[in-house]
């Protein structure tokens, strides 16, 4: 056994132990949903910073974005403006939502929607959207872990599945036992490993490749020589695509159930506000990791499986023991958000779908939520066996297109009661159908080419369907209001 495999194994075992120990953190009664799912709403600025950083920066950051830059060049860098403008949005939307949620004891976005519009169908629609959108995002975490584990299997990716399944069963077990406290505690380990790895990578790798200037010129040549050439700069038709992908992703980031779960675990509104200013430090990491896609091109790494680009780069440039540390960072970096995503999705299902059929809250809901976590992990595991996508990032982008359809009911609902719930429901349905239709028509690509006014505009599906959603919601609200007066 190589020292890298040993370090990876020890790290994953270590955080598993930590996940179970986390049940004792704060001596809380974990049969209470707020304790199990939201850590008792007790986290201060520092714990929240690690938790949110561990939650929002996932295998998307470590594996999928560098893979996209490696594959398509400049367009993949959209993740940087995305991770920048997400925070002004977060500051405004989340501090508002946190205050309302604390006052009324909400655990999910659908709790808020139920009270605001007094409409059960809309509540269930909002809840199911969150559950469904979380699944491909969890699947993306599994893709990240698979990329790491398959490095250690001489026989290829298929043989990484036993390791992947074991890691995921352990994840489900400690999440079941400890709730949000498990990923919160593990996030400290994860974020430390990630910072160490990225700092080492950007110090060592570009220097070994002859500096950034050399990395970029080699990448430009490699991308131009592809059968389907691309560039380290955007072509003018890509401007709209780039901006809509960044803006659409930023709008959807903080309405995902896993983001909401971590945000509601904060002790005060001020904790959220401070973190909106402190979390962009992680976005800098994201940007540097994205550039590792170019380092891989410059190093001449050639692979069909783009998700393995970063692990291969580490294996090429780091001493064997540090490869173990770096791979542990990626694997644990995927486990933490996967745990929070399954908690967030389970909360939605237990609180807003099942609850509509029973009158008891808390104890029963907690039991249901805990069991659902296991089910959600299992479904996500099946996802990667059966749904092949060209780039791992498409899992997240298509999930984001669905997620964004709750924007009118949830985010606009924080400020206005103007919309009619039935109109919002119709808008939501149109948005979902449009997203699925465009995804299907485009061969599950995240972007769709709209032909109108004699030109072609290729943009992120999520924003097209959100525009339709808003239009339908507004027009129907006007019609329904006219009907009642």
């Amino acid at each position, binding site marked *: 056994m190589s020292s890298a495999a040993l370090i990876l194994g020890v790290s994953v075992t270590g955080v598993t132990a930590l996940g179970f120990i986390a049940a004792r953190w704060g001596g809380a009664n974990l049969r209470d949903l707020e304790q199990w799912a939201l850590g008792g709403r007790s986290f201060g600025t520092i714990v929240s910073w690690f938790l949110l950083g561990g939650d929002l920066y996932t295998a998307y950051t470590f594996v999928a974005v560098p893979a996209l830059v490696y594959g398509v060049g*400049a367009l993949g*860098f959209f993740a*940087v*403006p995305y*991770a*920048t*403008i997400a*925070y*002004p949005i977060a*500051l*405004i939307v989340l*501090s*508002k939502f946190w*205050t309302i949620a604390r006052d009324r004891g909400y655990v999910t976005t659908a709790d808020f929607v139920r009270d605001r519009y007094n409409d059960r169908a809309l509540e269930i629609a909002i809840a199911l959207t969150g559950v469904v959108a979380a699944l491909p995002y969890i699947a993306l975490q599994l893709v990240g872990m698979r990329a790491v584990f398959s490095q250690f299997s001489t026989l290829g990716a298929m043989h990484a599945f036993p390791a992947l399944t074991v890691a995921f069963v352990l994840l489900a077990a400690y999440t079941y036992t400890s709730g949000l406290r498990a990923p919160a505690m593990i996030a400290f380990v994860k974020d430390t490993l990630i910072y160490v790895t990225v700092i080492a990578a950007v110090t060592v790798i570009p220097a070994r490749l002859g*500096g*950034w*200037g*050399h*990395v*970029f010129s080699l990448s430009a040549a490699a991308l131009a020589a592809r059968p389907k050439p691309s560039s*380290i*700069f*955007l072509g*003018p038709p*890509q*401007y709209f695509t*780039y*901006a809509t992908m*960044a*803006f659409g992703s930023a709008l959807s980031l903080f309405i995902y159930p896993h983001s909401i779960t971590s945000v509601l675990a904060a002790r005060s509104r*001020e904790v959220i*506000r*401070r973190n*909106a*200013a*402190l979390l*962009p*430090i992680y*976005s*800098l990491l994201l*940007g*540097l990791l994205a*550039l590792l896609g170019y380092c891989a091109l410059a190093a001449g790494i050639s692979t069909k499986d783009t998700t393995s680009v970063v692990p291969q780069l580490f294996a090429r440039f780091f001493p064997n023991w540090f490869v173990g540390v770096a791979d542990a960072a990626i694997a644990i970096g995927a486990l933490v958000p996967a745990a929070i995503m399954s908690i967030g999705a389970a909360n939605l299902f237990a609180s807003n779908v099942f609850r509509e059929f029973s009158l008891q809250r808390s104890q029963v809901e907690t039991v249901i939520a805990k069991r659902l976590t296991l089910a959600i992990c299992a479904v996500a595991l099946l996802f990667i066996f059966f749904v092949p996508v060209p780039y791992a990032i498409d899992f997240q982008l298509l999930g984001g297109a669905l997620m964004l359809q709750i924007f009118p009911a949830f985010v606009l609902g924080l400020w206005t009661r103007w919309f009619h719930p039935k109109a919002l429901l119709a808008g939501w349905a149109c948005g979902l159908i449009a997203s699925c239709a465009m995804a299907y028509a485009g061969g599950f690509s995240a972007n769709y080419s709209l032909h109108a006014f004699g030109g072609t505009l290729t943009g992120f599906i999520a924003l097209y369907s959100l525009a339709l959603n808003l239009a339908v919601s507004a027009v129907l609200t006007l019609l329904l209001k006219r009907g009642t007066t």
Partner: protein
Amino acid sequence: MRRRGWYLLLVLPFIGTLIPPLYNHAAPTLFGMPFFYWYQLAWVLVTAGLLGIVVLMTRDGRV
């Protein structure tokens, strides 16, 4: 509430990052990095700074 005016600072990152023709070029480079890349990385830091200012200046006021 005059303090709300500080929130207008948060419009800047959107203008700075969502109009790619503004920064889609190679020169000037920094540490060998084309402008396209270091410009957008710089916006991460600028945005964090702007957010810091807004958070400090609006501490008591509710949105």
